[in-house]
């Protein structure tokens, strides 16, 4: 009876339109939701684990119950606890015939298991069976699992079926099959290399969605091997053109953009294909220009496409017009109030700067603002930009800034990165040796242990080799300044180990070279180091070797060596060290001290660290000895190759053996096939040599045949692709296909001309800065100075720049106006509406957000008499930030916001019926014993509307 009751309650729960789980599960979720601390949560989860362990062991658990247990397991695992005791039940559930249970099972295993888990082998068979199912939902569920769980070893087990599914009637299945193949390709390219042509073929699938999915694997394939896909350029351009012309059904639209995700993917592929290829680039000029005109920069997705266009342009060989468009888009990004767009703008700038280096100059103040922004992400991106635009004229400012920032952060990962960038820039552009050594010291001091050990070795090499010029004097100065700075730093406490190694090495090598410091002084310092960092064996080793060098140089130059008492005690201590390395060094040092000058000089010559040590690989000095041995009757040496050559037959046996073994490794084929139906299927797919059991033993033959087939196929593909094109729209693109023959040599020339533009910019940097500063009194002089030092203060008449930028805006306004009118026609509100509560994120209860939004609206409109910029403030993420200047951009945006205001009201009126739904939800929540702390905001907003 009791049980009946519970079932009744469960059913009631279900029929409430509620959450369809049992009371126990709801209680679990609720109690975890109510737990105040992580410890309490852990306690609840642990007791739940106990319960589940017990329940899972009960015999004859009803399947519906089992399904819920598994969902509870998923929940536990999601919270970060180990649910491995129940994995096997999830695996069992995938075997169930009921699709509902099967789907739950698959969901659970894809969440629980990684591809290398032992239980995978138990699922492979089920997957094989499900892939053959008549129900496409079963097939989809199985394909989901394939994409997650199949590893390199098990690919052959499902590959034939997945390939068959490429021609399945349902587009959802075809899509997933492509994604599965894509995944196989990523896991083990060789396993599907013979199937690659299928991707090309699927590009002309009758369903455009499948075509879209095919772009994923094609992107990978093309990035691996650009040359063999050049023929597809015109097809991709054609597809993109049709997408932008809204030839695809309207259901592909996202926020009024036609199929934006496909557009972005196509742009990525096109960037790959025409990088450095002039003729391919030219093919896409038109469509890219169209995109710049068509993209609605008031929506996020429009900006995403614009950004992708900028990226594409930075890869291809662009026309001047496109560069202009890209620069304009970037300046719009940078002028935006949104941090996201600024970020993208900085990123775009960093890409375009490679092509035309003067583009950054008009945005110098925006860049400085981003550099000083409190937002860390933006700051880092700006540093990346600075890194890209560093030249010898601004290296000092940039590296100083970088080091300041490096010191201020705690994030080790980024610290490492920025440190290595500092080092790289310093090595490349250092204005003076002095400065270089200083910078390196700072980097080592503050990020010492994070720096790659190579950097330290590089530094030592640089000091030893000098800066490449044949100027011994300069090199000596460099070394001296290094020694001096190190002697200063060495007494500071807690230096990073790597830095100490460098210091020890340099002091040992060059400490006494100049004669400025005495051997005893340097060796005293070295002993101090070894003493102070006695737990660090590497540093000690470096110190002892440095000591050895110093004494060696002393002895070699004929001076008398008196070993300091602390040094003597150090040697004695190390002679008994547990570290064999240290012990060895100590013994060597001791032995060296007893040698005469001539011997010492040949062991450790002065400043010979750069000289190559000649290694006689043939050991020719042993020839005499060998001769002697052979004469006295020894067997001559037979090399390994000769030996194996002599015993050819046996090795052959061996390799065959090997072959046998691999083919026995794993069998995925069922023990007996009821019907040999596979071969007939294979003939319909034409391309796919279905691997029979003999798959492993003779892999060469099928591959070779398939490749020949694929070649033929690929030539046919173009024709068929054209047919598909026409399915979607007018065959207008065909003009572009004719231009497929390319002229690569020209393209190569193009890259070289674009690659260096740095010279132009650096020449302009020498112009005086004062005129620039005087003309801009309203901007912080500090910032200007920084800008001037960063960008070379090209004061090439500000008015000039202004006029050019003003001119740039006019067309922009035109397009934006056009864009603004589009939303009016459409009842769907602009997407920004959805982010309502984000701007006010004052870490308050989110429930109050709608109110704040409204308040903000009222306030701002009362301040400025309803100026159009205020409505803009409502949508932009910072309502509080006043718009400083009213340039043409602002008015443009205000027009936009006007139109979106219209849609805003519209959308509110359509919300009406939702209040009922919200009420219901609210009631349900209360029913479940949870009292809302404040009014349900959904409810509220609906009522307001």
């Amino acid at each position, binding site marked *: 009876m009791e049980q009946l009751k519970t079932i009744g309650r469960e059913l009631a729960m279900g029929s409430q339109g509620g959450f369809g789980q049992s009371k126990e599960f709801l209680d679990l979720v609720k109690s975890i*939701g109510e737990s105040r601390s992580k410890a309490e949560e852990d306690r609840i989860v642990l007791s739940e684990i106990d319960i589940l362990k017990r329940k899972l062991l009960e015999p004859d658990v009803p399947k519906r119950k089992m399904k819920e247990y598994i969902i509870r397991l998923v929940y536990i695992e999601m919270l970060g606890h180990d649910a491995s005791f129940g994995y096997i039940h999830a695996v069992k559930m995938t075997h169930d015939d009921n699709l509902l249970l099967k789907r739950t099972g698959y969901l659970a295993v894809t969440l629980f298991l990684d591809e290398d888990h032992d239980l995978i082998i138990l699922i492979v068979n089920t997957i094989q069976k499900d892939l053959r199912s008549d129900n496409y939902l079963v097939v989809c569920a199985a394909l989901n699992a394939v994409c997650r769980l199949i590893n390199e070893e098990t690919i052959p087990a499902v590959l034939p079926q997945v390939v068959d599914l490429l021609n399945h009637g349902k587009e*959802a299945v075809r899509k997933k099959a492509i994604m599965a193949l894509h995944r196989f390709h990523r896991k083990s390219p060789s396993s599907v290399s013979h199937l690659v042509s299928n991707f090309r073929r699927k590009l002309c699938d009758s369903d455009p969605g499948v075509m879209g999915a095919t772009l994923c694997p094609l992107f990978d394939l093309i990035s691996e091997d650009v040359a063999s896909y050049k023929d597809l350029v015109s097809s991709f351009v054609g597809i993109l053109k049709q997408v932008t012309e809204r030839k695809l059904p309207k259901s592909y639209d996202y926020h009024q953009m036609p199929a934006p995700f*496909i557009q972005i993917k196509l742009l990525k592929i096109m960037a790959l294909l025409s990088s450095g290829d002039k003729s391919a680039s030219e093919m896409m000029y038109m469509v890219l220009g169209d995109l710049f005109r068509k993209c609605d920069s008031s929506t996020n997705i429009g900006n995403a496409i614009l950004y992708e266009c900028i990226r594409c342009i930075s890869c291809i060989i662009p026309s001047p017009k496109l560069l202009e468009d890209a620069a304009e888009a970037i300046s719009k990004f940078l002028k935006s109030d949104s941090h996201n767009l600024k970020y*993208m703008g900085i990123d775009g700038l960093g890409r375009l700067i490679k092509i035309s280096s003067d583009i950054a100059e008009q945005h110098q103040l925006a860049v400085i603002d981003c550099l000083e922004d409190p937002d860390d992400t933006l700051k880092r991106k700006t540093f990346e930009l600075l890194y890209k635009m560093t030249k010898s004229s601004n290296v000092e400012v940039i590296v100083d800034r970088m080091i300041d920032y490096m010191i201020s952060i705690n994030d080790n990962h980024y610290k490492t990165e920025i440190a290595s960038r500092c080092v790289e820039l310093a090595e490349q552009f250092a204005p003076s040796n002095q400065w270089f050594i200083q910078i390196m010291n700072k980097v080592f001091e503050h990020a010492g242990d994070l720096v790659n050990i190579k950097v330290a070795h590089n530094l030592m090499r640089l000091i030893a080799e000098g800066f490449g010029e044949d100027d011994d004097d300069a090199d000596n100065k460099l070394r001296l300044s290094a020694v001096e700075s190190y002697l200063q730093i060495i007494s500071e406490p807690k230096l990073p180990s790597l830095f100490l190694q460098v210091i020890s090495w340099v002091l040992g090598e060059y400490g006494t070279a100049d004669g400025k410091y005495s051997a005893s002084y340097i060796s005293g310092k070295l002993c101090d180091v070894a003493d102070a960092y006695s737990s660090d064996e590497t540093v000690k080793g470096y110190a002892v070797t440095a000591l050895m060098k110093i004494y060696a140089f002393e002895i070699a130059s004929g001076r008398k060596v008196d070993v300091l008492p602390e040094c003597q005690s150090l040697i004695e201590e190390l002679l008994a060290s547990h570290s064999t390395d240290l012990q060895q060094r100590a013994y060597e040092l001791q032995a060296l001290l007893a040698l005469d000058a001539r011997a010492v000089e040949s062991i450790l010559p002065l400043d010979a660290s750069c000289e190559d040590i000649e290694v006689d690989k043939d050991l020719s000095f042993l020839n005499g000895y060998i001769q002697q041995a052979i004469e006295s009757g020894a067997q001559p040496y037979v090399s390994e190759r000769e030996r194996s050559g002599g015993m050819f037959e046996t090795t052959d046996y061996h390799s065959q053996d090997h072959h046998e073994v691999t083919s026995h490794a794993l069998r995925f084929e069922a023990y007996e096939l009821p019907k040999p139906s596979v071969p007939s299927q294979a003939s319909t797919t034409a391309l796919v040599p279905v691997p029979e059991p003999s798959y492993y033993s003779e892999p060469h033959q099928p591959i070779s045949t398939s490749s020949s087939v694929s070649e033929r196929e690929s030539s046919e593909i173009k024709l068929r692709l054209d047919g598909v094109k026409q399915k979607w729209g007018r065959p207008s693109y065909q003009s572009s296909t004719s231009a497929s023959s390319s002229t690569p040599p020209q393209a190569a020339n193009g890259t070289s001309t674009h690659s260096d533009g740095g010279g132009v910019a650096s020449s302009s940097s020498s112009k005086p800065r004062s005129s620039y500063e005087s003309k801009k009194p309203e901007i912080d002089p500090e910032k200007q100075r920084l800008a001037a030092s960063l960008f070379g203060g090209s004061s090439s008449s500000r008015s000039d720049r202004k006029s050019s930028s003003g001119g740039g805006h006019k067309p922009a306004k035109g397009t934006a106006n056009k864009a603004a009118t589009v939303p009016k026609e459409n009842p769907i509100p602009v997407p920004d509406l959805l982010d309502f509560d984000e701007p006010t994120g004052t870490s308050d209860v989110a429930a109050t957000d709608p109110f704040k939004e409204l308040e903000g609206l009222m306030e701002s409109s009362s301040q400025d008499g309803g100026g159009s910029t205020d409505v803009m403030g409502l949508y932009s993420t910072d309502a509080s930030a006043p718009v400083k200047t009213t340039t043409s951009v602002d008015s443009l945006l205000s027009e936009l916001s006007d139109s979106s205001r219209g849609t805003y009201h519209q959308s509110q009126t359509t919300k009406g019926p939702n209040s009922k739904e919200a009420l219901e939800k609210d009631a349900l929540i209360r029913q479940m014993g949870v009292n809302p702390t404040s009014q349900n*905001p959904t409810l509220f907003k609906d009522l307001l509307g």
Partner: protein
Amino acid sequence: MDRLMSLCVPSLDLRKHRSLIDSLEIQSCYLLSEHSCLASGFGSIHFVLLVSRQGKVRLTKWYSPYTQKERSKVIRELSGVILNRGPKLCNFVEWRGYKVVYKRYASLYFCMCIDAEDNELEVLEIIHHYVEILDRYFGSVCELDLIFNFHKAYYILDELLIAGEIQESSKKTVARIISAQDQMVEAAKEEAGSISYIIAQAS
């Protein structure tokens, strides 16, 4: 107070669609909707993470292999970084050489981890796309829906992303396949609701 908030969360404040009283109606609507489907791809996503403002995990999906220990660490680290970010800052954070794109809806943060070279704005839109689909499915979705129906959120995510790539960018198609699956749930429920089933269970 705090603990209640975690459960009783406000609506995710999404665009409202037609009035859809319950999921049954959604199904029929979507079943009737004409053919549409669109898939596309881009650089892969390493994981998807939903965390509440209190740092409670609402959903995790890992497309690259991470051990349970690493997962906890990732969640701890990221929620530390993301939850403390101010409202006006970028929706992106650089993290261990990757980029994490996040977006806040009411008290829930949707995070996706991508390669440093990916298009952040696009991923931001994928998040939004996912939320719109959820909204459509649950009918003005709120955190509570996701807490109790996290498995459904998983199913929907599986239709949207596969192995870290977007496979489906049409809301309608996702909704269609999910509703097809849900219909079987309804069928199963009816079966379970029948008297004979209750008796069979009780005895």
